């Protein structure tokens, strides 16, 4: 409901996710993890009392990238992989907007890898939600840059030969100023991570592990066990199940052991990039998946850096421009 009346009435009654729904029928496959993410996103907007007109959701192409159609804010469903670039231009000229980018593992890491990388390094003040289902959903099941080696897919029935990239590690290397991970099935935690992204100023990168029941069912199934998830809390020790995580400071690798055995469990510090990198690259399959905000940093954002160099346009600036035209050597013919 694109509706002014609604917009103004928002002030009065408590907002709910319904206020951010559109009339369009949501069309993902039954059981798709995207539904849960959408619900949390709409709830987030309600929770922060978002003014619809000031949020824009920009996406690429993929099942995930259908997101904007279902949210009653401004939305742009662009082309495959380029949402971060679209968002960069949008934010540069209209900095009061809150700009969300929704992308997939194919959209954001395959064709759009370069745009993602550079938006992060520039610290463009946008919030990038990457729905990682380790597969191309919309094109019906090819492997993606996050598909595990050996995964059989329509594009390689004999098994994927390409080493997957870890989105979080890549985002850290690229220079994202907030890096987080959540999973579609844990609504409360996802809500918290989305909130962290909403509150962040700068390039926020959130990987959301998402189930695709049709083409890649339950890649994150193991994560349903509590001891496969490591919920990161800033300043808190890293505990999961009845275990704790510690760092072997010689090999710089992570180790898990029962809480009792662990003398010195790691304490999370989201300001430490070094720690975030170690956490992100926890390749050992015996270790749990870190969830939550891995890293957060404050640094100047792109549109502010740009604005600091650019003088605001004068309205009725013809006079200054007229002078500019005649700067340098001129002569008069009479």
């Amino acid at each position, binding site marked *: 409901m694109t509706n002014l009346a609604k917009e103004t009435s928002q002030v009065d009654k408590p907002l709910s996710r319904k206020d951010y729904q559109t009339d369009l029928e949501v069309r993902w496959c039954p059981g798709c993890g995207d539904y849960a993410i959408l619900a949390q996103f709409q709830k987030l907007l309600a929770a922060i009392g978002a003014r619809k007109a000031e949020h824009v959701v920009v996406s690429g192409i993929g099942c995930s990238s259908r997101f904007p159609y279902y949210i009653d804010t401004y939305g742009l469903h662009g082309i495959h992989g380029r949402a971060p670039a679209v968002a960069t*231009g949008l934010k540069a000229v209209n900095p009061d907007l809150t700009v969300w980018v929704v992308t997939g593992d194919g959209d954001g890491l395959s064709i759009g890898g370069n745009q993602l990388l550079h938006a992060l390094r520039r610290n463009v003040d946008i919030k990038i939600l990457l729905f990682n289902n380790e597969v191309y959903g919309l094109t019906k099941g090819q492997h993606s840059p996050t598909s595990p080696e050996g995964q059989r897919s329509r594009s390689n029935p004999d098994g994927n030969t390409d080493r997957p990239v870890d989105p979080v590690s890549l985002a850290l290397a690229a220079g994202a100023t907030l890096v987080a991970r959540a999973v579609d099935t844990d609504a409360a935690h996802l809500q918290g991570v989305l909130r962290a992204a909403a509150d962040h100023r700068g390039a926020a990168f959130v990987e959301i592990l998402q189930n695709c029941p049709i083409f890649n069912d339950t890649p994150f199934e193991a994560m349903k066990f509590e001891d496969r998830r490591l919920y990161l809390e800033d300043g808190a020790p890293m505990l999961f199940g009845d275990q704790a995580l510690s760092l072997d400071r010689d090999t710089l690798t992570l180790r898990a052991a029962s809480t009792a055995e662990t003398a010195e469990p790691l304490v999370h510090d989201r300001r430490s990039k070094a720690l975030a990198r170690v956490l992100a690259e926890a390749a050992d399959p015996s270790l749990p998946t870190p969830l939550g905000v891995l890293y957060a940093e404050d640094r100047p954002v792109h549109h502010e850096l740009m604005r600091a160099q650019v003088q605001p346009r004068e309205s009725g600036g013809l006079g200054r421009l007229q002078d500019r035209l005649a700067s340098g050597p001129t*002569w008069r013919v009479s």
Partner: protein
Amino acid sequence: MNAPVRTELPAAVVRFAGDSGDGMQLAGNRFTLNAAYAGNDLATFPDFPAEIRAPAGSLAGVSAFQIQLGDHRVYTAGDAADVLVAMNPAALSTNLGNLKSRGVLIVDSGAFSAKALKQAGYETSPLDDDRLADYRVVPVDMTALVLEATKPYGLKRREALRARNFFALGMALWMFDRDPGDSITWIDGKFQGDEAVLQSNTAALKAGWHFGETAELADIRRQVNPARLDPGLYRNITGNEALSLGLMAAAELAGLELFMAGYPITPASDLLHFLAREKQLGVKTFQAEDEIAAVCAAIGAAYGGALGVTATSGPGLALKSEALGLAVALELPLVVVDVQRAGPSTGMPTKTEQSDLNQAMYGRSGEAPLPVIAASSPADCFSAAIEAARVAIEHMTPVILLSDASLANGAEPWLIPDLSSLEPIRPPLAGPPEDDGAFRPFQRDERGVRPWAIPGTAGLQHRIGGLEKENVTGHISYDGVNHELMSTLRREKVEGVGAALAAPELDGDEQGDVLLVSWGGTRGAVRDAVAAARARGVAVSHLHVRWMNPLPATIGNTARGFRRVIVPELNDGQLTRRLRAEYLIDARTLSLMQGRPFTRAELDQAIVEAAES
């Protein structure tokens, strides 16, 4: 001033050539301003080396600057030179072909060392035998004379020799009886704080000026009288400068912010460079990571309510193809500048060509029509940029603006317009939502134009994308009939742009033997050639096409008034094919793909052949 034994010329072509390090562009630019101050009309063209920075004295390192000055309107930098200044053997070797038979050839004979000759591929000095007999050779030992003149200022030999370009400039000014005072003042300002260099340059300039006098070279003096030009304030301007200023003017006329996203590529990079220097006027520039990101950022800016612009050359335009399709589907305003260069692929990046017209027209998937305009001279880039932006904004469509390497780097005097006299540009901003509370992003007006709803505006939130949209509501639609409707509406909207545009003016009679159709940068040369041919009694007229899409409806009828229709193009016949398809006229291409503009001789011959055939 001495008694004028000077040859009077309606127009003269002067070419300065030397090593990249010799400062020929500077000498040329100073000479140009002087001619302008003296009231000549003129056009210039720099001829840079393609190489990164070729070794000093090598053939690849030669840099030249050409100017044509006239006592009437001058539209090109001219073909062969009346005067060639060659600062070393390499410059002589690569530029002699550009000198008219019997033309004046000034060489720095002091630079013709054995080593330099060898580097230029000469076994013996051409100054020593009759290889240059066809020219009026004026060997001047500028090297020695400059060292002599600058001795008082204590510079090292190498540094002192840097003033040789001012010596050459001085001689050239003397030849055309121009006042060196302006240049002296300029030197004073430019080299302020470096007294030795300032003094040397001034001394060299004066030495050059006096040299002609004392060496009794009166026979080489030339006179080009002032031209009649429209009154007003003028400046000299290159195509890329004019284009940048035009974009700025368009943004102001529309009351929008100018956001320019680019990725460097020859010969378009200067557009980014120039605009990046205009931040104090509110211009935002963004050097993207690649051409795709650049056009997408510009689309994002357009969606966000700015004048989104991206500029590139052919290979970059290729990369933008997909996103341009999106811009067509979104119906957002966008100006895409293509400064054409010789292709295909990397081709000859510094050389000119008009071979991206097809790509501009058709380089997108599906039916994705958009307006295309081509600038016709350096100064015209200003107006073309405004027109492109006007159509983009008022018709909510991406527009491609074609320039080329010649226009971009060529320069000519420009009558600085009074901005307040230009028609404002009116963005079709969306009004409040309709009574039912709904906003319909594809509710078109009578011209087929949809409303522009800027994010941030309460009540207008909407979702659009590259999937086909239902007309009016903008909702995703897979309905075939709607798709056909939308395809047709998109085409008609672009065709409708034509209604607002002036029909091209025919230069010459409405009936005749030959019609020359020019587009883009061929305009000037064609205009000159046609005027000359008409003066010789040939029944030839000239039509210039400015909007390549939509094509003016009148062309067909105009063309049918002539026995032959010739389209000179720096490509293999791209406009010709469109004219044939649209109007079923037997237009023929005069094709040139040598990385340079047409010469008069080539056009003259084509006119004669067509008239006689």
